[in-house]
């Protein structure tokens, strides 16, 4: 599957193998890791909630868009769900292409679209014992009007 959600540790080697192709001279891999800080707060661990039926469907669309827009051969993306510890891999994108420019561009496209279009949410648990959904507060502060869409 080109886009998938995993509730266990992501096998990055398997993702790389999935895009292996002797016609390709370039492989670009992006890994998103759980870091220990966000906006001045010390993070202890992180929890991803994923609504799989839509995430998998939209994720597959993003991969298909990348395959159409860029001169690449293969692309896969795997995103984690559940509770993750610091340093763990939350998402991996692997893109192979004949040449590196298209592979870089497509990889960037896939991770950027994944972050803004898929129903995936993260809750940060801070060392202070507090936890909160990431990004939501900023949006709430900015106000909202569905009619503006």
């Amino acid at each position, binding site marked *: 599957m080109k886009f998938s959600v995993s509730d266990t540790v992501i096998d990055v080697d398997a993702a790389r193998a999935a895009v292996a192709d002797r016609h390709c001279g370039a492989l670009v891999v992006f890994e998103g890791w759980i870091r220990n800080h966000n906006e001045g707060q010390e993070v202890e661990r992180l929890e991803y909630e994923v609504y799989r039926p*839509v995430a998998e469907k939209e994720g597959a669309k993003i991969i298909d868009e990348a395959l159409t827009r860029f001169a690449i051969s293969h692309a896969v993306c795997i*995103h984690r769900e559940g509770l993750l510890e610091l340093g763990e891999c939350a998402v991996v994108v692997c893109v192979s292409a004949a040449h590196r420019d298209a592979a870089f561009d497509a990889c960037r496209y896939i991770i950027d679209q*994944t*972050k803004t279009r898929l129903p995936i949410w993260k809750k940060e648990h801070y060392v202070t014992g507090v936890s909160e*959904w990431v990004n939501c507060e900023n949006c709430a502060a900015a*106000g909202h009007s*569905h009619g503006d869409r």
Partner: protein
Amino acid sequence: MKIRVRYFALFREQAGCDSEYVNWTGGTAAELFQEMAERHPSLQNQAAALVAINDEMSAWETALKEDDEVLFFPPVAGG
């Protein structure tokens, strides 16, 4: 019309439930959100919120039909 509403992440916490059936006069997904926000005062509109209808990403202006399942997604934060 009868609609099933589902809430995710922050919206689930604000609504105090993950899903509910509502009897409603009809309208768009945006109007349904406003109606639900009146029923659940903690449920707050957010600029980057998304909506899906029957598991398809949809526009807030989409008119709802009988038995639709409407999914309210707070601002997403994958990656």
